[in-house]
């Protein structure tokens, strides 16, 4: 397996010859130092040169002072997954500089604050190339003005942007455009930042005749694309999906979803005439209240949603069960973070699959959607509202910190043209046709989905009282065994109907492969990159199925039946999806081989490659192997 590693890591650049548009840069700073803008500018400059990029921010659960790392990966083939190996390192943080250098691979290039003395005897590594920059001295040149004093710590970051631009061949013009974009119209700020970049450019030009062999060269792979975080994309989806009620409670990494929704709604949901909003957004006192508000609103007929993370879902469990049993539309975004408990609030994970699928007491199962890109955050948010109202049940949109909070390159979002699917709602006229024969929980169409009415419908037959306690199909309180059984069996039928309505899987088959990779959400990136490398470098060709929802769609089931070995890639410790797959497809149970990364970092291809190459059937066949024989990251 070390063989695997070397195979995937020893690469050009080390030995000096140029590597074009294929590298990753890591910038190490301290939290709260304001490096975010600088890093975005750096990333966007490369993006504007037409080179595919992804940016991942590794930050602490703290506001200021603790170490933060921002990693930019540029890849001409469009791989956006996290990469284990770093090619270029920018050291701005004294606290972590030594470790940071220790961890880069041989042949890496290190730009650092001169004061850190990383090349001092004893410290210096002779298998990496150093570029010492006196950032703290340079910054004084341009922030002499007293009113600038307090901005030094911030603006200094722009200097490394300039240095890196020069060292790697990034077009300064694009950098300046990126700054202008980032600081929308704040001319003073723009000027100051550009000055800083130029300072870096000049310094590097003079001081470092030998440039970094990892080069950025113009290409045309980002035409029309955008850079956006998944949370913002999901918020846009809620706006275009017709959400009118949002109840939330702040929690990392989900807060920015509702906060973006607030911002968008302020623009896009204000009545031009009255200036009043046609949206109601409430920051609740906690997550129990958030879900209560969402269910109340859904019951009243609004498209309502909340966004939270694992701890919030746990708190919502009791009310979610009511949503299932009383059959109330609701959309919940679970932007997953590393659990259990408070866990690592600023690290990513796909750890709430079982929590959400089986959420709440008694027999319950809920539809889950798995967006894998900002574009899907946008489209699936809209689908979620349709499904919630069509199925009259809570729908979970399972994203994670990596997708929600990191910068993703994405196609521009398609404008939705289909009308909203509001599901089976009877208005006064509709009720008048059926009168007393209507029953809120009657399965009229044989699909397990009953007809509902909305409060305020002017018809004497329209009203009903919804409840989490036992009821018959007229929504009347009932403890009769048969009423109960009929009702919960109908809910099973409804779940079978959901199976036919949820998003289909995305399937990529290679010629004649008998084994396949199965992934969902952000595990898509490391998995598909691994798939290509397995084919090209190791001659292992595998089919691929990206699961986009639960319950399992028939097309996913068929794909699984067609494959003898299925590597299920997920970012959690226990192989949570495998648990569901083994239950749903017992006759295929032994085909599911679990490949897992659960260290809080986004999945990288190497983990998947190792998982597949080290696959030893014996160790997989399960037994009560709690580890599911998967590979630990």
């Amino acid at each position: 397996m070390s063989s695997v590693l070397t195979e995937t890591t020893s690469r050009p650049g080390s030995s000096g010859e140029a590597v074009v548009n294929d590298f990753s840069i890591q910038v190490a700073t301290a939290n709260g130092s304001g490096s975010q803008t600088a890093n975005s500018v750096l990333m966007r400059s490369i993006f504007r040169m037409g080179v595919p990029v992804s940016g991942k921010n590794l930050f602490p659960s703290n506001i200021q002072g603790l170490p933060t790392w921002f990693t930019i990966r540029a890849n001409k083939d469009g791989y956006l997954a996290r990469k284990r190996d770093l090619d270029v390192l920018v050291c701005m943080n004294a606290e972590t500089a030594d470790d940071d250098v220790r961890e880069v691979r041989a042949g890496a290039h290190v730009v650092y604050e001169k004061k850190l003395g990383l090349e001092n005897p004893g410290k210096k590594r002779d298998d990496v190339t150093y570029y010492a920059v006196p950032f703290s001295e340079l910054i004084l040149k341009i922030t002499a003005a007293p009113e600038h004093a307090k901005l030094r710590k911030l603006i200094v970051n722009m200097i490394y942007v300039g240095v890196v631009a020069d060292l790697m061949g990034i077009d300064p013009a694009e950098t300046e455009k990126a700054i202008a974009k980032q600081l929308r119209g704040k001319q003073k700020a723009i000027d100051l930042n550009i000055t800083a970049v130029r300072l870096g450019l000049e310094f590097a030009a003079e001081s470092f005749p030998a440039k970094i062999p990892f080069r950025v060269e113009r290409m045309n792979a980002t035409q029309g694309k955008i850079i956006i975080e998944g949370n913002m994309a999901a918020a846009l989806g809620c706006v275009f999906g017709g959400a009118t009620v949002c109840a939330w409670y702040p929690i990392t990494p989900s807060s920015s979803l509702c906060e973006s929704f607030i911002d968008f709604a302020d623009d896009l949901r204000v009545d031009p005439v009255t200036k009043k909003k046609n949206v109601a957004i409430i920051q609740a006192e906690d997550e129990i209240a958030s879900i209560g508000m969402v269910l109340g609103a859904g019951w009243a007929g609004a498209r309502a949603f909340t966004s939270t993370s694992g701890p919030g879902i746990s708190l919502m469990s009791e009310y979610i069960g009511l949503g299932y049993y009383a059959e109330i539309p609701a959309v919940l975004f679970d932007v997953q973070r590393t659990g259990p408990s408070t866990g690592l609030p600023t690290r990513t994970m796909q750890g709430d699959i079982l929590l959400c699928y089986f959420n709440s007491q008694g027999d319950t199962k809920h539809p889950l959607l798995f967006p894998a890109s900002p574009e899907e955050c946008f489209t699936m948010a809209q689908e979620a509202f349709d499904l919630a109202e069509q199925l009259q049940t809570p729908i979970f949109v399972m994203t994670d910190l990596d997708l929600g909070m990191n910068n993703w390159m994405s196609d521009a979002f398609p404008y939705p043209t289909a009308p909203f699917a509001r599901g089976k709602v009877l208005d006064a006229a509709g009720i008048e046709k059926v009168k007393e024969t209507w029953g809120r929980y009657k399965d009229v169409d044989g699909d397990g989905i009953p007809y509902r009415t909305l409060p305020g419908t002017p018809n004497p037959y329209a009203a009903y009282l919804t409840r989490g306690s036992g009821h018959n199909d007229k929504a009347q309180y009932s403890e009769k065994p048969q009423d109960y059984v009929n009702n919960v069996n109908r809910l099973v039928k409804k779940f079978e109907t959901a199976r036919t309505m949820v998003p289909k899987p995305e399937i990529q088959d290679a010629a004649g492969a008998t084994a396949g990779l199965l992934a969902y959400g952000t595990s898509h990136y490391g998995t598909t990159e691994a798939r290509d490398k397995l084919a090209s470098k190791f001659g292992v060709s595998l089919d691929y199925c990206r699961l986009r929802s639960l319950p399992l769609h028939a097309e996913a089931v068929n794909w699984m039946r067609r494959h003898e070995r299925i590597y299920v890639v997920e970012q959690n410790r226990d192989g949570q999806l495998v648990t569901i797959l083994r239950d749903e497809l017992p006759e295929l149970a032994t085909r599911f081989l679990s490949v897992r990364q659960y260290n809080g970092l986004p999945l990288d291809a190497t983990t998947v490659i190792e998982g597949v190459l080290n696959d030893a059937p014996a160790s997989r066949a399960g037994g009560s192997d709690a580890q599911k024989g998967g590979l630990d990251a």
Partner: protein
Amino acid sequence: MSATPGTPAPAPKTNHIGLPKAHYEGGKSTLCLGCGHDVITKQIINAFYEMGIEPHKVAKFSGIGCSSKTPAYFLNRAWGFNGVHGRMPSAATGALVADPTLIGIGVSGDGDTASIGIGQFVHLVRRNLPLVYIIEDNGGYGLTKGQFSATADLGAKQKGGAVNAFIPIDCCSLAIELGGTFVARSFSGDMKQLQTILEAAIAHKGTSVIDVISPCVTFNDHEGSTKSYKYSKEHETPVHEIGFVPFFEETLVEIPAGDTKDVTFPDGSVLKFRGVGRDYDPTDKEKALKAIHESHGKQEILTGILYIDPSRPSLCETLGATGESLTNLPLEKLRPSREALDEIMESLR
């Protein structure tokens, strides 16, 4: 519970919007005979009938408990949301901001509100959601057989003999402290006062908290009365088994304004109610708090409209929403234009 059009043909008598009382009634109660909660239900029916509110514009909310069952027993032609225990305010909030044209009424118990539900209660009052919020207050958990709630009096005695060692939460003074805009207390047995308060509450734009003392005839217990459980227990079964519920009559009285009235309950207990006097100023926060605190000292239960502050904006205003229902807006109002999307996309390049 869905509408039961099978109810008897409209009696000649109707309210000012021409609807018969029958349109305001609900399903058959399953509470204990003599339970004060049923009397409150009657007054809710009367209040909505008298005010001539269209039943289909009403939304009923409750949590879990004997009290929380009652929305099934009034206004069958109104919608009802029976939530989870102690978390009704959030459901009501969601529903009423989604459709502010609905008239909301919530029925809770003292356990549902002051024990498990105190958090949502506090924030409901703080947000001032337009909602009539009734606490059917018996100082205990009826539905789970008589344990103490957070409003039980210090020293109150349980059917099982246990004594409450904690001081009670007074939901009225608490609501006032929190900036409540309509706070009242009444007694299930005083139908006249209760109905007056209910009608004022329904008219109030904001959260109206009404704490209605409604003793649990089945599980309350007090000493020194031949009618008390102590007696029947001796003739009956181990304290442990509380299977037996004798039938009681409802206790009905009128509490005089500015004076007190002792009310004796089937179990022999006596409560002293006082009605606020003509001179009482319900707009003075400090005085109101003082009056309530003093009544505690005097072992009196101060009833009437204790505090009102019509000035504070209700949640729906605070949110700056249009005021119309957000549940059935046309697509055009909800989905921004193609240009709007393009503009956003451009800003992200």
